[in-house]
Every structure is written in structure tokens, then in C-alpha cells.
């Protein structure tokens, strides 16, 4: 895979759920702090209980997420890895291992928070997207008929 320009990285970032609320020029600002890296099969992106570090956006390849040695789910292109640890200051609860040769965008935590400090409108848009999602979840919860029995189809998706 060729190294992407900042503009091409911005185009890729628009597909990332976390950044769905950002304007295109804000995506370019995020793209400007995102480094493109290549990881070979079997490499570990980060380990469980390690301090929070970076947010990864998969461009190409596959990464397996595991907890206490058990595989939980696989992440593919345009998905992000490390969301929770990126924001909540707590050690990572999962490990990430590369399943096949993979290209990623890596956004360093400190760089990202510096960017938010410089561009308050990005913070606002992130919040808006987040609250929109919380509201839709709440609305869905309120509209769902009350049931005392848990539905077999309502198992929560694996957290990332």
C-alpha cells in the first residue's frame, strides 16, 4: 500500500464512526496528526493492562482483539482500535494482535488532545456526535417494549 497524503487520509477518516460528526476540514486536521504505519503478521499493537496510548484506524488488513488470552473479535478496514483507552485514562482491557500484514493510521493521544485544545469546534462536534448516539440509544430503549425476560438476540456487541 502506498503512503497516503494528508488529504487521502482525511477521506479515509470520514468512514470512521468516531469521527462521523467532524467537518471535512476538521478531518484533515486529524489526518495531519495521524501517522501511517505498517505492521507485520503476529505483531502486537498493544497489550492488556498497558497504559493508554494511541488510537488506530485500520486501512488494510485484520487485527484480533483478545482478553485474558481469549479471542473476542476481529477488526477490519475503517474500524478503530483503542477507543476506550484513548479517552478514559484507564489501562487497556484488551490486547490487539495483527492477524495479517496490516496498514494503520495511528493517532497519538497527546497530539489529539493538543488538537482539541487548539480547535474547540472539533471537541464540540465530537460531543454532538456522541450525544446524538446516546440519545438514539435512549430513544431506542424507551421505545422498546418492556420485557422481564432477556431476549436471546439482545446480547450486547463486544466492546472495543
Amino acid at each position, binding site marked *: 500500500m502506498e503512503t497516503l*497524503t494528508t488529504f487521502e487520509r*482525511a*477521506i479515509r477518516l*470520514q468512514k470512521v464512526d468516531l469521527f462521523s460528526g467532524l*467537518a*471535512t*476540514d476538521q478531518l*484533515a486536521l486529524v489526518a495531519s496528526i495521524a501517522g501511517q504505519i505498517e505492521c507485520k503478521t503476529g505483531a502486537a499493537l498493544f497489550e492488556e493492562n498497558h497504559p493508554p496510548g494511541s488510537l488506530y484506524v485500520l486501512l488494510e488488513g485484520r487485527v484480533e482483539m483478545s482478553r485474558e488470552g481469549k479471542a473476542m473479535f476481529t477488526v477490519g478496514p475503517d474500524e478503530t482500535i483503542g477507543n476506550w483507552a484513548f479517552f478514559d485514562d484507564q489501562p487497556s482491557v484488551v490486547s490487539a494482535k495483527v492477524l495479517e500484514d496490516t496498514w494503520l493510521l495511528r493517532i497519538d493521544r497527546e497530539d489529539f488532545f*493538543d488538537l482539541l485544545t487548539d480547535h474547540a469546534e472539533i471537541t464540540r462536534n465530537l460531543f454532538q456526535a456522541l450525544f446524538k448516539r446516546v440519545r438514539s440509544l435512549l430513544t431506542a430503549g424507551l421505545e422498546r417494549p418492556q420485557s422481564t425476560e432477556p431476549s436471546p438476540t439482545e446480547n450486547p456487541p463486544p466492546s472495543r
Partner: protein
Amino acid sequence: MPTSPPVLHPRQRLRRYFDIREGEWRPTLLLAAQLMMGIAAVICLKATSDSLFLSKFPASRLPWVDLAVTGLVGLVVGVYLRLSNRLGQGRLVSLSQVFLAANLLLFWLLMRWELPGVPALVYIWVGVFAVLVPSQVWTLAGLVFDTRQAKRVFSLIGSGGLVGAALGGQLASIAGPRIGAESLLLVAMALVLGCAAIAFCLDSPCLLARPGADPSKESKASLGESFRQVRESRYLTVITAAIFLSTLAGTLVKYQFKAVVKLQYLDDASGMVSFFGDFYGYVAVFSFLFHTLLSARLLRWIGPGSALLILPCSLLMGSGVLLFSATLWAAVLARGSDQAFRHSVDRASLELLYVPISAAVRTRVKGFLDMVVSRSADAMASILLLAAVGVLRFDVGQISWVALSVIGIWVVVAMQLRREYVQTLRNSIERKEVNPEALLRDLARSEAGSLLQGTLQSSDLKSVEHAVGWLRFGAAGVEHAQIAALLAHESGAIRVKAMQVVATRDLPGYRDEVLRFLALEPGVEARWQGLRYLEGEADPGHLGVIEALTKSNDRDLAAAASAFLLNRDPAKYSSSEAALLAFVDSARSGDIPARQTAARLIGFLPSSEAGTLLLEGFLRDESFPVVEAALSSVAALKPKREVTLIRGMLRDRNLRAAARKALAAYGESVLPQLHAELADASAEPAVRRQIPRVLADIGGQRAAELLLASLDETDHIVRHQILRALSRIGKHRSSDLFQRAGVEDLIVQELRRYFTEVILLRAVSDTSSRVGALFLRRALDERIRLRLDWIFRLLALIYPRREMLDAYHWIVSGRADLRSNAIEFLDRRLEPRLRLMVLSALEDRESERVFEAAGELFGISRMAETAALENLLSTSDPWLQSCACFAAAEGGRTRLRAAIATLAGSSDPLLAETASLASRRLASGSNGS
């Protein structure tokens, strides 16, 4: 290359003339047809019943039967409203019209058997029918269309009614003498059945198309409920008064007209049918022409509030003529103007007045207003006529005295209604403000108090800190010992918050705990708060406790206490100043906390050259907490030499907020320097982007003028900051802070850019396979939204700020009904120069009207994609230029190679990189997919 606008097809011209849009044709035509048949039946029946009644009875009996009509209408409305709750409007209309048609068949049979009293019965029944049927059609129309749609389509629907009146008049005039007045009942029956069939077609899909128009979700209506609703709303009360007076005046004139006709024709029923048919027919033709050619334009030009004055003014004239000459021609003039305007512009205006009211309230009260209030007015007219004719022995002409008095009051009420209409529109878009502080106070006082107590004992420090924050809104139920413990908490953040709670809520009895807090807490601000608390606890003028602290072994605490005393009484504690300066001076070589304390304390000292010199030193400290503390002290000393240094600190994200505050403290004296930096396009963007906010914090006329003068800025982030700053100044502005004409010019410029961007957006392909083109479209769409935001921010500078921002909020809310009301409000609120341009900008961006508006208002023509890309490459917006470079390469636009190659040398790194990539791709013939 701009392309010329296409030649419009006649059908398109017609559509444009009537301004009926996609999806509106079917319900509009159905409603117009229904009104046409309904009114044709009404006119046909009125000619029949009037002639049958007047040929059998004298005109003086008319008030009695009009009273009977009123009574029957009240009864019918009561039943009708109850049925509407059960069946819904659509179904009720169709079923009730079938019932009315059956009634007509029955009357025809009774007439054939020549039963006595039937003409009077038919007259009364027709009175009810004439009220019910048109009202049903308008109720359906109000449910189908929103405010903006109503304004456009109601005049066409009204035209249907006027055609119906002409048709009904001609039917009565031509067919009446040939087939007999009674047989016209069967003709009317056929027309009513046609109405019922249309009501059946309109039921369901159309009615539910508009949010809030679902009859099933509307609250139950009853006469009592409707009356309560009217009484509680000032707007509805004024509408009620206008309807009452309008009907009252109309009924008086109608009596005069019929009385003159009776005098002319005596008992000639056929002659009267023919005359009434001709009269209603010609009046309808005039009314139709007036309505078609002028009604909609009048509504657009002067609005429904002013259009409501046309009918009373014309009646004032007609009734005046009747007063002096009670001839047939004078009667025709008075009644003709009443009928012509009442069913055209007056009806359409009145229907528009209902639209800002919510659908639920509208349904509840409209039937009540249309039927009960109008019939009460008829009853009142009958009583007045009985008194005037029977008691006072007024002749036909003298009745005009009564009519003229009523019309005079009606004009006054109509003028009041015009004011209320705009106010109601404004209210309908107002946001309901929630006071979060009040909510938190309520919560803190409620059962949440026990939960709070539990949290205060938690081992999680963050939870405790949050809980202490809540105590600011109420500390009921929290024990003294618990707060005392918080003041001595191991966490500094919790201690400081607890001190804030004790100080801001003025909790008594914490003197010893605060003294302990002062010993523990090193921060100057927090200590200052503690010292103020001690001052409040002490007797006035007795600051012994604080004086004792000046002798503390803790030098920082002693200095803070000295500074506090010096600040409170400089004469009494002047000896402290030298000691304090010495303390600050010695702290310069101390550690960071010591320097920080010293830098902050300077701000509490009286202004002096020595203090200023020390402060200048701290502003150059290598540690940012020390510089930040020094910036807090700038407000007190305002060192003139340091403005440039502080301005440079705006680039540092750690110092930015404090630097802004410090610069604002200088006031207007720094405006020239700040403006020069803002106007310098080569200055550092990070600094320039902060300056508008500083100007807003300084505020005032001069700052506002400088911000307005800077609006030709090309960096859209700086521009956005300028507009936000203007908005902040506008929040506290005096009325003449912004020059109206200047701001209007800026709005027009902004609108021109808005339309240009919309045309550019429409030119770029939306093919899903072209990622770059789609990305460019998204970027353009964001710019257009931002542009709209700016337009409303500018509008808020010259119109009431809250109104404009609320209108913008509803326009972008995504809810069609709110958007429609907001646009209607703007239509009424904006001055003519801006109105058309702003309203055109709010049209659906995907519609053909955007091209038309851009061309007509600004001479902007549609473009092909290559021309649009070329245009974008030549803008001064590096982001749009980057997007255009990428899309041009993706689309293989080799014609743009030279322009793109030039941009590869841009000073903007992203643009240079993207242009280089695009150049390479165009050279190699690869589109990068």
C-alpha cells in the same frame, strides 16, 4: 463556462406562477374542486331558498329565521365536534356530506307535496349548510398544509370556491326559471355528493403527510374546551372578535340587500331566483378575477394582517352609499363588495391567521370560531335588526347607521389582529429556556440529598469532588462536621471546592475550619476566598483574626493576609506594602509555587512602578504556571510595555485564556494594535484567531466597528471567530451599536456567496464511485451551512437577537413544521430589501428554484462541473481548493492542469501536497481509484 437558463415550458410557467410544488398539486386541486362544488351548491341553494322565502313571506321576517339558523347551527356544531373526536376529520366530512345530500332529496319531496312552512325550513337548513360545507373544506386544507404551503396554495384553493360561486349563480339564473326553484335542490344534491367523494379521496395519505396533522393524535374537542382555549389566548380572542364583527356587519348589509330586492320584485319568485343567480354569478366572476390576479400578490406584499382591512374598508364605503340612497344599485354595490372580498382575499387572510396555531389547538377552536361565533354574530345581527326595524322603525337606508358603527369597531380590531399575528409567529418559534441552576437547586433540595451524603463519604476522590460541586446548589441535610472534614480534606481540589461552598452559600460557624484551610491551601485565590469568609464572620472593622495571620510562620499565608488587609484599607495598612514588595522580590529566586504565589499577589497590591517591574519579570518567567499567575495580575497593573508580549502568548494553548483576559483588561487602548494584527493576513493564524474574542470581551462601539471592518477576511476560521465575536457583542448591545445599512450590505454580500456556493455544489457530480467529488460536495455543503449561520448572526445584529437565532435554530432543526413557521415569521419580520433574498436562500437547495433565485437576484448562472472546479481552484479557501484539486484529478480534468500546478507552490502545506498529488495523477492519466 456559465450556461444560459433554459426556456420554460408553458406548464412550467403556470407552475411557477401559482408556485405549487412537488407533491402539492394533488391535494391542492382536490381541495379546490371540493370547494368549487361546495360553494356552487351553497350559491344555488341560497338563490333558491331566498327566492322561495321572500316570495312567501315579507322581508321583516328575515331576522326571525336568521335567529333560528343560529340556534340550529349551535346544535349542529356541538354534535359535529363530538363526532369529529370519534371519526376524525376526513371521514366525518365525507359522511356528513352524504347525510346533507340525503336531506336535500327529502326537501325536494316535501316541496313537491307543497307542505306549508317548507320554504322557511329550507331557508334555515340552507343557513346551516352554507356555514358547514366551506368550513369543512378549509379545515381539511389547514390539516394538509403548513404555514408556508398555505400561503402559496390557499389562494388557488380559494379560486376553486369562486369558480364554484360563479357556476352556482349561473345554474340558478339559467336553470332556475326553466326547471323550477325546487328542482335546483336536486342539482345541489349532486354537487354535495361530489364533495363527499373528494373528501373520501383526501382522507388518509394527505392528511397524515404533515407532522402534527394526524387527527387521531389531536386532543378531544368540545364546545366548552374550545371556549376555554379561546379565552386563554389573546390571539384567538382577537380573531374571535374580528370574526364576530365581520359576520355582524355582513349580516346587516345582507338584510339591507334582501329588503331592497323584495321591494323591487315583490312576490315574483322566478324573477328573484333569476336575479339572485345573476347577482351571485357576477359577483363570483369579479371575485374570481380579483382573487386570481391580486389575492396572492396582496398577501405577499402586505401580509394577511393588512389584507384583513380590505373587506371592512370596502363595506364602510358600500354601507355609506346605502345610507343616502337605498336603491337596488346601492344595495348591489354594498352586498357585492361584501361577497367579492369576503370569499377571496378576506377568507384567504383569515385562514392564514390560523396556521401559526398548533394543529391540535386549531382543530379544537376553528369549528367553534367558524360556526358558533359566526352564528352568534348572526343572532346579534337579528336582534339588532328586530330592534331597529320593529322598535325604532328604521327604514332600509337607516340600518346603515348600525352597520357603520359595527364596521368602525371591526377596523380597530383588524389592526390589533395584524400586530398579534406577528407576535404569535414569534412565540411559535421561541425556544423554551430552562434554567439549569434552578433545576440543580431543586435537585439538591430533593431526596437526592441523602444520595449526596453517601457520595461525600466515598473513597473515590473524583466522586467526592463532583458531590461537593453539587453542594453549591444546596447543602440541606449535610452535617456541619461533614463540611468541616471536607475543608481539611487531603485532596486540594476537594478542599478548594468545599471552601467555595462555604463562602458562596455563606454558611455560618466555620471560622476555625477556615483558619485550618488557610494553613493547608497554598493557592492565592482560594486563600483570598477564605480571608473574605473570615472578614464576613468578624465584626465590622475588626479584622484581628486576619491581622494575626500576617504574623504567621507560613510566609505565603502571611503575605496573602497582608495583601488582603492592604486591599481593604490601604491607609491603615500602608506599612504592609513595602513588606509585600520585598516578599515578592525575594520570591523571584524561589521555586515555582513561590513564584506563582508572588506573581498572583502583585495583582492585589496598589499600582506602583516597583510592582509593575516585578510583574514584567514574572511575565517572562520560564514556567507557564508562573506566567499564567502573572497574566491574572495584569488586569490590576496594566503594564503598557507588555501588550506585544501578551499578544504573542495567544499562540500558546496553555496561556491563551489568561492572555485573552489580560488583553481585554486593557480596554479600548489596545484596540488599534489588536486590529492591526487581525488585519495582517501574514500574521500567525493561531494568534489572529484569538483576537476577535478579545475584541468581544472589550466590547463597545469601537470594537464592533473594527470587527465589522475585518469581515473581508479570507481565512474562514478567523471570519467565523469575527462573526461569533460580533454576536457576543450584539448580546449586550445598545440599539444603535451597528449601522443598519452597513450590516445589510454585508448580509447581501454573504447571500451572494451563499448562492454561488450552492450553484457550485449543484455542478459537482454526486456519482457514488467518485470519492473525491463526493468529498468536495460534502465540504461545499458544510461551507453553505456555515454561510447560513453567518447570515443569521449578521441578521441578529440588526434585528432582535433572540428572534433571529431561534428562527435559525428551527430552520436547521430538521422539523418541517417548525421550519415553516420560522420562515413565515422571517417573511413578516424582515425588511423588503433582505426579505426576498433571505427567503430564497431558505428554499430547498435541490430544487430548480435555487437556480432561478441565483440568476434573478445576483445574476449567477448554472455551471458545468469543470467550470465549477476552476472557480473553486481560484477561491482563497485552501481547503476547498484542496478538495477541488483532488476531484479534478479524479475526474481527469486535464484542462485544469496549469491551475493545479500553480497551487502546488502554495504556502499552505495541505494544499501544496494535494495539488502536487493531483498534478502527478493528471500527468500520468491515473485517477487514483
